[in-house]
């Protein structure tokens, strides 16, 4: 069996498929992170809003992306944006609890010391709280990234599925070799992204005695 069978030209090349897959997956993780940090910090600041926000995020996480596409298409059309928005919401669901627990998990004596040294709220956040929450934040990022890299494929239903399109063609033409190749490439992409995140975390947290391997 040919590991990289010829694919119909209208799908583009393996390179272009990989590029699309990664663009949509990583952009949604990035947007998710940008939205998750302030949301999580609000939850830390006002603990009462945390349970309802987690509940809402869990519901969002359980929504089928296809249903969300239906809701989004009238406003955002058959574009990558329509795929990115639901994936951003999924990332949010994975990231917010991790950031909240990370910041809350800072040892009490470290928090007290930071206050006693004379840190003001905002400066403490940047200098102490967030750096110390890096390990759980990275754990959330890994879950979101690996999930998104695979889930982007669902976009094929609105015609922007990257490797999803490959699976659709494989089904129509009964080309199981195409499907297998697609799965292998996606898994490799997910693993590569995960590895990159692990390396990043190791570099960011030389102080952590329990670093990921």
């Amino acid at each position, binding site marked *: 069996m040919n590991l990289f069978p010829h694919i119909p030209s209208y799908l583009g090349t393996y390179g272009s498929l990989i590029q699309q897959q990664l663009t949509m997956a990583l952009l949604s993780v990035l947007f998710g992170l940008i939205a998750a940090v302030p949301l999580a910090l609000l939850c830390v600041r006002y603990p009462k809003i945390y349970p309802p926000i987690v509940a809402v995020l869990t519901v969002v996480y359980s929504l089928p992306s296809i249903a969300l596409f239906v809701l989004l298409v009238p406003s955002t059309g058959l574009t990558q944006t329509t795929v990115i928005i639901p994936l951003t919401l999924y990332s949010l669901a994975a990231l917010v609890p991790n950031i909240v627990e990370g910041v809350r998990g800072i*040892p009490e*004596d*470290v928090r*007290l*010391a*930071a*206050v*006693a*040294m*004379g*840190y*003001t709220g905002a*400066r403490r956040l940047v200098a*102490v709280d967030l*750096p*110390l929450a*890096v390990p759980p934040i990275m754990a959330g990022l890994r879950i979101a990234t690996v999930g998104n890299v695979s889930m982007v494929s669902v976009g094929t239903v609105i015609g922007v599925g990257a490797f999803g399109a490959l699976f659709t063609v494989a089904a129509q033409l009964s080309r199981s070799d195409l499907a297998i190749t697609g799965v292998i490439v996606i898994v490799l992409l997910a693993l590569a992204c995960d590895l990159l995140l692990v390396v990043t975390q190791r570099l960011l*947290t*030389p*102080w*952590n*005695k329990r670093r990921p391997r």
Partner: protein
Amino acid sequence: MISFQQVGKTYADGTVAVAATDLTADSGRITVLVGPSGSGKTTLLRMVNRMIDPTSGSILIDGVDIRSKPAPELRRGIGYVIQNAGLFPHRTVLANVMTVPRLLGWSKDRARERAMELLATVGLAEEHAKRYPFQLSGGQQQRVGVARALAADPPVLLMDEPFSAVDPVVRKDLQTELLRIQSELEKTILFVTHDIDEAILLGDKVAVLNTGGVLEQFDTPTELLASPKNAFVEGFLGADRGVRRLSFFPSETVPLRTDPIVTLDTTPAEVLARKSEQPWLLVVDAGRRPLGWLPEQRVPADGDLQKVPAGDLVSYGHTFAVDRDTLRAALDSAVLSPSSRAVGVDPEGRVVGVATVEDLVPVIRAAQNGSTPENGR
């Protein structure tokens, strides 16, 4: 000087953490707050840098109300050492110590120079500077904690049970180090502990607090040990306070006998003459360093000490340094010796003289009756 004026803390549910308290921590001295848990000692401490706000009264540092400037600014001018050190795990030792100077806007170079200086002050080698807290032992972490608190050279230092989480040997080291550093820097230190021995060892003055934040007695350690004001303070001090109090009196008043001291070269006639008066002879070498006790029954009949096998000498136990050690050390030395005699030595370890337990009794009695002992520690 830190003055607490009618300072109290009552929580919304009516629990009194600190009853209206008046207390003055003198400048350049160590003031210890000691008491059982629930006695409000940590609450009182944390009020000074406004981590907790009192519900009544006011606190002044050198006459200035602590509420006269914003809390973060106040805190940067007050050193703080916490139990378990509370180091920032994501920063190197050096960066931890540089924290407050950097917050105060010092340049990186100046802050680094100061931090290196302080690591040396607290007895840490240069190579520790680049390590992360998890790579240090508990005792080393606490040294870094002290260095970090001293970084911006604050006049006031708050220490919140700083040594209670380390093992007894390391704690002893840290206590000694603190006293050494304090003798050089003369900070105004407020020190919280639940350990009365630590309070007595470190405090120039000790405030004994009872449950509900009631100040029972505020005195020097010797006064506290000599005359506890009530049953609570007496109970808190423990049963051996009389013996402990002896550690505040110098041993130089102990009368020392020299007649039981003999050398290997002392003439046999002289040895026999001494033996008839002394049940124990202390044999010393040519440099007057102690070799051991010789009980009278093992003295050779002809008095020739050269014939005594080394194994016949009884260990002299531990000696006390006449110019430095306290009455407690002298008593300990006598009580622990098989001869019931304490051996007093000079700084070079040469024997000055010996004292029996009986010799110590009048000196101890004088100490117990005297009201103004020297601060012997």
